[in-house]
């Protein structure tokens, strides 16, 4: 099942068709798109820089996806994560899950995002409108969200 790390933006419809177009065994497709918000915990955010650990990122994402495929009856899954510079409103991450029925597709998409947020080696640096910058701190809530799948 595919995972990708890329600088370029993605198109949800095009990725979905590439993943499951023409298949007739899929009743439910869930997509999650994460975007850069212009405000984070009260700070103004003009742009984000996404850094990652090449090699480990892809391995970790593939392992998270394999775990989802083992836990839910999925016909297909895709994870795409952007790196580099992004501005407020831009896409950051895409998860697609496809299954015969909707509950598996919804649960697996949530699981993939929760694990991606706590395991995949990506780091965000925020740039404020005045030119300042700061590394984003991990949220305890993300660890809690991931823990519920244990």
């Amino acid at each position, binding site marked *: 099942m595919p995972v990708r790390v890329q600088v370029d933006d993605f198109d949800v419809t095009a990725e979905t068709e590439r993943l499951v177009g023409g298949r007739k065994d899929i009743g439910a497709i869930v997509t999650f798109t994460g975007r850069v918000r212009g405000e984070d915990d009260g700070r103004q955010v003009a742009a984000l820089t996404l850094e990652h650990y090449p090699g480990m990122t892809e391995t970790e994402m593939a392992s998270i996806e394999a775990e989802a495929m083992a836990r839910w009856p999925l016909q297909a899954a895709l994870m795409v*994560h952007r790196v580099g510079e992004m501005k407020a409103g831009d896409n950051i991450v895409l998860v697609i899950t496809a299954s015969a029925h909707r509950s598996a597709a919804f649960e697996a998409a949530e699981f993939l995002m929760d694990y991606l*947020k706590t395991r995949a*080696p990506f780091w965000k640096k925020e740039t404020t409108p005045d030119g300042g910058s700061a590394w984003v701190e991990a949220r305890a809530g993300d660890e809690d969200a991931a823990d519920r799948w244990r």
Partner: protein
Amino acid sequence: MATDAKRRVRLVYFAWVREKVGLPSEDVELPEDVTTVETLIGWLKQRGPGYSDAFARPQVVRAALDKVHVKPATPLGAVREIAFFPPVTGG
């Protein structure tokens, strides 16, 4: 590797660990008494102010051995690449 006594490894740093250390990566020879992630961090902290700043709160620095997440007590074994980075914030 030629001998166990002179273990040559690659250290890689990410995000603010990289910025504080001042390097994205470096090749080092580990002393014999550096056998775990924890003892490696202790050894690195002696190498200069950038290192001691980066590892000032070692509990918030995460490590990976050959691209696999590990805990501080993990033995280094025959590892070739050791990465240090903050808690991840992707997604």
